[in-house]
């Protein structure tokens, strides 16, 4: 599987994401700088990493979402290429309009950096097929702005269409309906605040994130 990790100025989980993808797929992703205008031919997975791109200036993810590469990401997403946005990557995807809603300052105002329990709500997407619906998994969060907001109609639609992929098992950051990760309507774009790439091997203290990448590999094919 050919994959690409988009690197913005201030991304800091790009390497972790690349290591996770390479470990699971056996192939190192292309690291694509945000000023590029095209993705490598045949890119079958796009990942937007965590970090603090542009220092979170204006709004988290806002300036990165207007980067030149994002047109190519949007076009690939339209064609059905899986796009994974983790943490700052999730913020970029909402700012780019590829996912609904917005991520606001945590309700408690604190930066939260710890393992959290997540409930897998949708186990049928390209990202979650290796999990069981209703399963509880442990994945770390590390963010200041993970408080998911959308209006009630949007939240109802997300829930009705099975587009809530992960929910915090307990309230974490003030997110509406404890939403931790959502899918786009077509199911090929996932944004999530927790970091699955930080739970890939036993030395990480758990491997619950690994199945997300394994599921992607299965969907996209080697």
């Amino acid at each position, binding site marked *: 599987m050919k994959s690409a990790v988009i690197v913005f100025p201030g991304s800091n989980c790009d390497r972790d994401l690349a290591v996770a993808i390479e470990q699971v797929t056996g192939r190192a992703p292309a690291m694509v700088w945000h000023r590029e205008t095209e993705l490598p031919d045949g890119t079958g997975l796009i990942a937007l990493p965590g970090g603090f791109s542009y220092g979170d200036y204006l709004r988290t993810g*806002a300036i990165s979402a207007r980067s030149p590469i994002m047109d190519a990401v949007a076009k690939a997403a339209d064609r059905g290429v899986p796009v994974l946005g983790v943490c700052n990557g999730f913020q970029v995807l909402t700012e780019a309009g590829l996912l*609904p809603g*917005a991520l606001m300052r945590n*309700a408690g*105002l604190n930066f939260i950096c710890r393992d959290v329990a997540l409930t897998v709500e949708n186990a049928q997407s390209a990202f979650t097929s290796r999990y069981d619906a209703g399963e509880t998994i442990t994945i770390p969060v590390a963010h200041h702005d993970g408080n998911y907001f959308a209006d009630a109609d949007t939240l109802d639609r997300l829930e009705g269409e099975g587009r809530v992929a992960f929910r915090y098992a307990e309230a974490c950051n003030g997110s509406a309906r404890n939403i931790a990760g959502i899918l786009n309507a077509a199911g090929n774009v996932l944004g999530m605040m927790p970091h699955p790439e930080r739970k890939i091997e036993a030395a990480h203290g758990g491997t619950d994130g690994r199945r997300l990448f394994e599921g992607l590999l299965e969907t996209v094919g080697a």
Partner: protein
Amino acid sequence: MKARIFVTLKNGVLDPQGKAIHHALEGLGFGGVNDVRQGKLIELDLADGTSDADIEAMCTKLLANTVIENFRIERA
């Protein structure tokens, strides 16, 4: 030519930073503050003749996130 863009959170969007400011004001002994909402002021120095439509587009495309924010343009 200058324009000032006021970006504010929409009604119904919780503002934890505003709440913290509110608590701090109360802690300083200021009574009678019913609510605090925090926003942003963005000042633009623009070429003469920049159209209202262009400024509006700057707001909707970047300066404000209309999912959660309103904006108001004041031309100086």
